[in-house]
């Protein structure tokens, strides 16, 4: 079960792939679809593996990624 989830603004993404390279869990990949600007945007290929580390978002030059983590029970 995934501990995190990322929300990628598909239209903001320029398909540079830095997030894909940065993800230690290999969650992300290029979509086969293209966005309005013609880029193959990044998406969560293996969402179940996401730990919500936010490395992808930190490296995203277009600030297109939001990261959420599961609430940890007190």
């Amino acid at each position: 079960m995934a501990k995190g989830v990322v929300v990628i603004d598909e239209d903001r993404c320029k398909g540079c792939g830095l997030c894909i390279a940065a993800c230690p869990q290999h969650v992300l990949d290029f979509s086969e679809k293209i966005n309005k600007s013609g880029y193959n945007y990044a998406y969560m290929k293996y969402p179940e593996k996401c730990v919500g580390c936010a490395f992808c978002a930190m490296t995203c030059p277009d600030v297109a990624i939001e990261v959420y983590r599961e609430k940890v029970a007190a």
Partner: protein
Amino acid sequence: MPVNTENMIKVFGRPKSMTDVRSTYCPGCHHGILTRIIAQTIDELGIADRTVTIAPVGCAVFAYLWYKCDAVQASHGRASAVATGIKRANPKLIVLSYQGDGDFASIGTAESIHAANRGENITVIFVNNQVYGMTGGEMAPTTLIGQRTTTTPAGRDPGYFGYPIRFSELIATLDAPVYVTRQALYDTRRIMDAEKAIKKAFTYQVEGKGYSLVEVLSTCPTNWHMSPVDANRHVTEVVTKAFPLGDMVDRG
């Protein structure tokens, strides 16, 4: 694809002081990462309502669009002089001079050095990508030895074109600057280091300590003719040899 984020905590999002304007930078360009770091720093220090950013000439000419802050566009190379004018006119403002390598280390050499030497209480972010991006990939003052650009098609021959200039090291010889550092953004560890350095630079300004310079090694995948991932590797393996990372001065 809709993702269910109910019952989850947002741990990373767009900084509040950043506008929604879509970035004009090429895919994979580090300017975007840097923009996010600066906005995040402005948020963390709570200074958006008194920050003035100075947009240079070059790829970052649109820098006035990225932040919910007052901004001015400066002529090529003069951003540090414009910053001086703003800060001297109103010392309560937090002034960011955002400059590329051609702007800061070539055409603006005099303005850059003398603002530093006067110890102006400003923060300069100096983006070093070793090439003139906006105009089509010409040689920059920081272009590496042997590096091919559109004006050094056979590679930079130092006997003919001179050597890549280590401008931050020059600034670091001055007595006035409180903080001079070189950072990079090629992996998450470096990004976290850069975040700390930029926050320190702004904090020093807020505390009235004086001039800070954060040089940031950036990629230019377009004009380096590399993929963004390969460009990151190039910074790691090649660029940092010519431009070593780390603090040169910290008198804070």
